[in-house]
């Protein structure tokens, strides 16, 4: 059982992840953010539960709905927000946007917009961990949509063959953009795939941050001990549409959306802590207000940050040779 301090910290992280998504949506609506958003609201327990169970030397790879993962792994909010807003101070100096970043300083291998594209990247990082004999564990975050990409199958097969320390965290929010899981696969749960690759496949309630934490901790221990990969399917739901501007109702009923909002991962942990006497409504409100206020201050700074100059730097496509030797 997780101690109270840890659970309160996870609650705060989930509030922060949600606040960040809401801030992005505001910035998108006010045209301060370029490109689209991919809201993570409703899925916060997965990013927070998984990353809270990792060590700082462990690694994650993310995808286009990835800001929550980055925050939970320790990204700097100002730098992250600047990147979303195309600012020079962003993680990628405005070159990548929120779908294309990477920073090994906090164990973030990268995210890209090709669905399933970073699953082999994470698997390769795990191969490196194994070859070097390090104790790193790598988490590959992806959605149910990515599960049907060929490269995902290829990568998972290799992880099984080589017993790699990787955790495949499938965030099953049940819709690949607009196409339902039922239309995409002939099985009820994607976790059955683990067996096909020779490793454990498990389905957990992705809105229960404690369950996600526990499952991740076990999978990480397994990876660290050299016992290979885990397919961890986290059942969840995104409250919003696939991208900013998609109300998400052309392919989902209002009742379905509402029923999942009742399963809000933040509300769930909050009410549990209150029932236990480990949190009061007032404490929660103070914490939440603080998170939103801090983020508002960060956003103000990011909005004032400069855009990159209008210039092409041809040399920027390559890493300079001098960094290679050593």
């Amino acid at each position, binding site marked *: 059982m997780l101690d109270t301090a840890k659970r309160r910290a996870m609650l705060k992280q989930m509030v922060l992840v949600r606040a960040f998504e809401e801030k992005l949506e505001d910035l998108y609506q006010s045209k301060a953010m370029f490109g689209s958003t991919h809201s993570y609201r409703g899925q916060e327990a997965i990013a927070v539960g998984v990353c809270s169970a990792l060590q700082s030397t462990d690694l994650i790879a993310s995808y286009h709905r990835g800001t929550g993962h980055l925050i939970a792994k320790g990204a700097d909010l100002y730098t992250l927000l600047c990147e979303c807003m195309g600012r020079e101070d962003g993680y990628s100096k405005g070159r990548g946007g929120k779908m294309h970043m990477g920073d090994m*300083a906090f164990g973030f291998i990268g995210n890209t917009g090709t669905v399933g594209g970073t699953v082999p990247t994470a698997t*390769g990082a795990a191969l490196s961990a194994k070859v070097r004999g390090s104790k790193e564990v790598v988490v590959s975050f992806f959605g149910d949509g990515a599960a049907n990409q060929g490269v995902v199958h290829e990568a998972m097969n290799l992880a099984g063959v080589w017993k790699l320390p990787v955790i495949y965290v499938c965030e099953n929010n049940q819709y690949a953009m607009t196409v339902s899981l039922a239309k995409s696969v002939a099985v009820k749960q994607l976790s059955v795939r683990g067996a096909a690759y020779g490793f454990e496949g498990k389905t957990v309630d992705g809105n229960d941050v404690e369950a996600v934490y526990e499952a991740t901790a076990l999978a990480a221990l397994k990876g660290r001990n050299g016992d290979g990969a885990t397919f961890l399917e986290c059942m969840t739901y995104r409250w919003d549409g696939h991208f900013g501007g998609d109300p998400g109702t052309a392919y989902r009923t209002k009742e379905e959306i509402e029923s999942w909002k009742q399963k809000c991962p933040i509300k769930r942990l909050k009410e549990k802590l209150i029932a236990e006497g480990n949190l009061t409504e007032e404490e929660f409100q103070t914490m939440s207000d603080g998170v939103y206020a801090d983020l508002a201050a960060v956003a103000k700074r990011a909005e004032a940050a400069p855009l990159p100059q209008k210039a092409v730097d041809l040399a920027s496509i390559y890493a300079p040779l001098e960094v290679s*030797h050593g």
Partner: protein
Amino acid sequence: MANAAAPVATKELRMQEALREALRSEMARDERVFVMGEDVALFGGAYGVTRGLIQEFGEKRVLDTPISESALVGLAVGSAINGMRPVVEIQFADLLPLAMDQLASHAARYHYMTGGRINVPMVIRTKFATRAGGGPSHSSCNHGAFIHFPGLKIAMPTTPADAKGMLLSAIRDPNPVLFFESHHLYGVRGPVPEGDYTVPIGKAVVRRAGKDLTIVTCGGMVLKADAAAEQLQAKGIDIEIVDLRSLAPLDRETILASVAKTKRAIVLDEGPMIGGLSAELAALIQENLFADLKGPVVRIAAQPIPPPHSPPLVDAMIPDVDQVVEAVMRLAEGGKIA
């Protein structure tokens, strides 16, 4: 750089042996280097390049893999980001499109799209060449397609010495390098400098000096250019051959310096003419040297059809020596060489 120094000891090697020497010495020097691909371990690679590595370095660093080109490239990206120096063998260039997303949207872009925070030091070795018996899925020359993806480096050694020197440079490069090895050149022997011999990626070489006309070419076509140049020498026409060695970055300086001198240029490529390397080279030359040229820049490249199986069909598709000689003679008459 070892190259600039006084004469070094050499030994005669075939290109495969030169490549193997580079892999062996670099794996011994740098424990981050490992090799993976189909049949690279016990079998020693489909072309024998990785023969003996498993015995010397063990199965942790020489990995036989299933047939999963896309994941191989993707795992190479991830292992490179996380501190390794992977060298992947893809048996035929025809199979690169299977891994296109990982090559073009991941490996090639990581450095740029992360604002320089992440580097991807990896090498993808592959064999290419259009030849009889290979047919549509085993003899493509698709190298030109990859110049469209900024961030990839593309190497194409012609001599065994360059094969060794450029493979060492490729493995040490902090960027992804696509390393094209021509089937036409695998059997060719040549002197290879011993020791830590490197040839920079991104530098062309004047393979044959001449004053009348420049042939800009690469890979197996260098042999055809040379055969044509020999015939033309007998006619009193002095050909200069620029061997690109790298398609990206392209050594514009060496190409333009040569054509500025000879004032006539033919670009010769085994890849398809349309939208390809030859078009890029011809445009580069005429944009920069139009006023100096004594005739049009002539392109000789593969016909735009899939590579066929039967020998006469292949011969009709890819450039031959006679075509080069004829093109030079046409330019010679128009431009009054000699």
